[in-house]
């Protein structure tokens, strides 16, 4: 072992196969196995992160432009939109929404988009005995073909297939012409036990005009649909792949589209063992694409990406510091080791991390956290003055600046409204502040004083947290899924915030199911909630407060069940508008309205902190794009050099252990001899 320790060129503690670090391979990890890899089903971030590299929807987010901007991916140009009225007459692009009967998107496909090599594209593959097949490797031949418009149509039909259970079917059946009817027909077929052949089904809302032209027709007007075209839900699926996986015995061997994706993206899934490792390999058929502004850098820039299962933070962080993972997030436990906060409040790398030549990459997430007040609640809800002032008082008392400092290590900013930074409609600085909770003082946000909150509380009829007439204490209830020791500090913090006003807070911790149940019934009073942007449009945040979208009874995403006729009217007006001053003006009105009504205590926008080793090419994070792996680049030679430098096994414990064992043997031997001597 000593010789092995001393003579080995590659560090003996390397978790990677011999020589792997020398290749242009990214080493990363995943903590939870993805449930679905079918682009019609996958919606969780860990699923999208993987299939975003495999499948290609028609559009993508420009990698470097901010604010986020869509660009063609598999198209020759951006989709052409035509608005039609009920008689089928073409309307002007700015026609009022009520006149628009249909929106027709015409998409012109590139002719060089080809699928990854896969046995499904081999025409004469029936000779393979399926009984003996254990994986795709048992199919000796591979082939490919060009992506056609019919493949996109097939995928859109799959959204309505009851066997697939797509999470966006509910939304899309209200959007794409004929999709609901198709879904109903297929459901009946399934109930009757009849076979389902999607290719034989017609769908008025998705038509392949020719091999390169796709036409999608929507009911009415839905400008945000264009963003859905940048998600894997709208990636092409070749029907022959479905037929390939539908053969008897394939699903039982986990050979299905949900497990073995087939796409035209920059990578294909070469190894899928989600219990251990998932490996993406460069697609040899990937079309010509370059890094933005760099015609010398053809994408993808790496050959492979290996994702290993790491359920725990400690081993993951340890391996990152040893150089065996190329990048890492920063857990709370390791924050102090990795980051120090400069006197001006800006985060920077600690001396130890600087010594390792790490890069710190930060970005505000397109997400929002808030504490919701149920609008249906008799104490806190409704448009009455008393309830509003009570909500406003609580919004002031909840000191999110303190929360961010204590629980997020400063990784966030206090939210001022329903739209986070980076999304059109957000206002920076004094223009965007929430006048209910903050004031602008000396060029910075300042939370209003507790005296203001107490004043509002008294005006609401609860002076000092007691009922003005009866003197009964005000007791409020926080419904949460958080429980256990980890959440205790946070829940105590909530109690403390309410106690500052003399209000008693009772935490009703429950499990996920009961919590969801309460939210669906509208019986929760105060709750924590958050939203990650699906797409960078203010509609994707403001719809969370739209009355007809309320959760109680209607199963929508308006978790606070906020209902305001004025807000709803403005929302309908805003959602169909183009970004510009007019839309901004409407959004400003909506923001002012919800700040005043305070159905949410706007909590914070979290900041993502990531560390990258020095051998990684610097990149600005793009938190909207799903397909960013192709832009990743690294220097494997530098990586190997650092790995060797950082991983030199210590030999002294071995010698110390041997000496200890020798000592024990000696002591035992002497004891034995002593006892023998005593007996004789």
């Amino acid at each position: 072992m000593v010789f092995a320790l001393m003579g080995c060129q590659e560090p003996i503690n390397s978790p990677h196969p011999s020589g792997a670090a020398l290749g242009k391979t990214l080493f990363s990890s995943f903590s939870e196995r993805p449930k679905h890899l079918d682009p019609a089903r996958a919606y969780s971030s860990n699923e999208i992160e993987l299939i975003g590299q495999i499948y290609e929807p028609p559009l993508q987010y420009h990698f470097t432009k901010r604010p986020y901007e869509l660009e063609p991916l598999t198209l020759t140009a951006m989709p052409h939109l035509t608005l039609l009225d009920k008689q089928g007459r073409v309307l002007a692009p700015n026609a009022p929404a009520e006149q628009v009967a249909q929106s027709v998107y015409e998409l012109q496909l590139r002719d060089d988009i080809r699928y990854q090599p896969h046995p499904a594209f081999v025409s004469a593959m029936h000779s393979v005995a399926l009984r003996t097949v254990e994986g795709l490797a048992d199919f000796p031949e591979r082939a490919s073909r060009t992506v056609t418009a019919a493949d996109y149509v097939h995928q859109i039909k799959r959204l309505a297939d009851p066997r697939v259970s797509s999470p966006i079917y509910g939304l899309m059946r209200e959007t794409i012409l004929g999709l609901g009817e198709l879904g109903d027909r297929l459901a009946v077929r399934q109930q009757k036990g009849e076979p389902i052949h999607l290719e034989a089904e017609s769908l008025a809302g998705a038509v392949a005009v020719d091999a390169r032209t796709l036409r999608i027709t929507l009911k009415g007007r839905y400008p945000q649909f264009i963003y859905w075209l940048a998600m894997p839900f709208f990636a092409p699926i070749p029907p022959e792949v479905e037929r390939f996986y539908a053969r008897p015995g394939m699903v039982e061997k986990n050979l299905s589209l949900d497990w073995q994706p087939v796409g035209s993206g920059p990578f294909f899934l070469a190894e899928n063992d989600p219990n251990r490792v998932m490996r993406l390999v460069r697609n040899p058929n990937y079309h010509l694409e370059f890094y933005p502004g760099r015609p010398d850098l053809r994408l993808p820039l790496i050959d492979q990406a290996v994702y290993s299962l790491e359920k725990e933070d400690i081993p993951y962080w340890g391996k990152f510091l040893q150089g065996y993972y190329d990048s890492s997030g920063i857990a709370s436990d390791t924050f102090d080791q990795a980051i120090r906060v400069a006197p001006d409040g800006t985060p920077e790398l600690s001396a130890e991390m600087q010594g390792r030549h790490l890069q710190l990459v930060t970005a505000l997430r397109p997400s929002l956290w808030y504490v919701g007040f149920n609008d249906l609640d008799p104490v806190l809800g409704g448009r009455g003055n008393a309830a509003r002032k009570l909500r406003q008082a609580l919004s002031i008392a909840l000191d999110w600046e303190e929360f961010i400092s204590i629980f997020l290590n400063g990784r966030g900013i206090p939210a001022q409204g329903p739209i986070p930074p980076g999304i059109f409609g957000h206002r920076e600085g004094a223009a965007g502040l929430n006048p209910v909770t903050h004031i602008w003082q000396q060029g910075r946000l300042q939370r209003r004083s507790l005296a203001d909150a107490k004043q509002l509380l008294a005006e609401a009829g609860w002076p000092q947290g007691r009922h003005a007439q009866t003197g009964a204490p005000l007791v409020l209830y926080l419904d949460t899924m958080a429980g256990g020791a980890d959440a205790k500090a946070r829940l105590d913090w909530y109690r403390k915030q309410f106690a500052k006003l003399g209000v008693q807070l009772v935490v009703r911790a429950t499990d996920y199911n009961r919590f969801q149940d309460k939210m669906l019934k509208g019986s929760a009073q105060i709750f924590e909630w958050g939203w990650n942007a699906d797409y960078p449009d203010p509609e994707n945040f403001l719809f969370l407060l739209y009355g007809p979208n309320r959760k109680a009874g209607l199963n929508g995403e308006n978790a606070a069940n906020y209902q305001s006729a004025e807000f709803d009217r403005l929302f309908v007006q805003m959602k169909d508008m183009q970004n510009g001053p007019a839309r901004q003006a409407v959004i400003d009105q909506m923001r002012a309205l919800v700040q005043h009504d305070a159905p949410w205590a706007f909590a914070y926008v979290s900041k993502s902190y990531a560390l990258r080793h020095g051998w990684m090419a610097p990149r600005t994070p793009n938190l909207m794009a799903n397909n960013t792996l192709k832009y990743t680049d690294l220097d494997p030679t530098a990586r190997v050099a650092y790995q060797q430098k950082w991983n030199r096994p210590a030999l002294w414990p071995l010698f110390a252990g041997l000496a200890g064992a020798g000592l024990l043997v000696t002591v035992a031997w002497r004891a034995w001899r002593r006892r023998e001597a005593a007996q004789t």
Partner: protein
Amino acid sequence: MITYLIRRLAYALPILLGVNLLTFALFFGVSSPDDMARLHLGGKRITAEAVERWKVQHGYDLPHFYNPAGEGVAKVTQTLFVQKSLKLFALDFGAADDGRDIGREIGKRMWPSLVVALPTFVLGLGAYLAIALFLVFFRNTAIDTVGVILLVALMSISGLFYVIGGQVLLAKWWQWVPISGYAPGLSGLHFLVLPVLIGMVSGIGDSTRFYRALFLEEAGHDYVRTAHAKGLSPFRVLFRHILGNAAIPILTGVVVVIPRLFLGSLILESFFGIPGLGSYTIDAIQAQDFAIVRAMVFLGSLLYILGLTLTDLSYAWVDPRVRLQ
């Protein structure tokens, strides 16, 4: 012997049925099919229709125990309990709620569990017996006293501490082995060193004390004193007489564990990234995948019963006085 085995098998059936019923009741007591559907479909934009479709697709639209809409035996067979639980008796585990075949997954995952658990078990047992014999050999000396104090100290430390401490010491500071990971075949041997070592060390305290107590009890018997009086060497008395006669209680603890080695260890597998069965059940509970939970609970019960039966058989094999009827 055959009669005995048949009777044990007959006893096993109601036990397994009871376990199934209990698992079913507990699971559906805290989780309705609607909850399961919502969790599987994701947290966003889930419509009531999508929930219904998921339930139909996965067979959770049936009543729990009695289906009034069914005809004849279908009133009982077309229920969640029969469709989801009773098929297990034919070892038909079916598909997980995410569509993966459970039997195949178990077949795949049990080997990594075994690859870690078997050497941990064999090497650990050898080490515990050796240390216990060593302490008994030096009983009533300072070596024994110091050894027992150390064992009590080792017993008092949490298993998680061994895992994290081992990773920090051997993998992070001394850099002898990878911190975590797994690879099949011989190329993955270096991944096994640390989990096996930690598995062994974490069991030293209680197991060695248990075996030491057994040996001390045997050492106090008359036949041992007689053996010493006859002039047999202390080594011969220790290994031949004391170890041999302590074999039955050792077997009690050991044989019952053997079939369950396939099920692996939750903590070790989670911290070392070993793709075994240990974390399969916990992952399934978190994901509210009832199909996996019932399969794993059933398998655990089955293996436990198998272990008990094997223990009985081993009694008869080791001690000729025991007869199974």
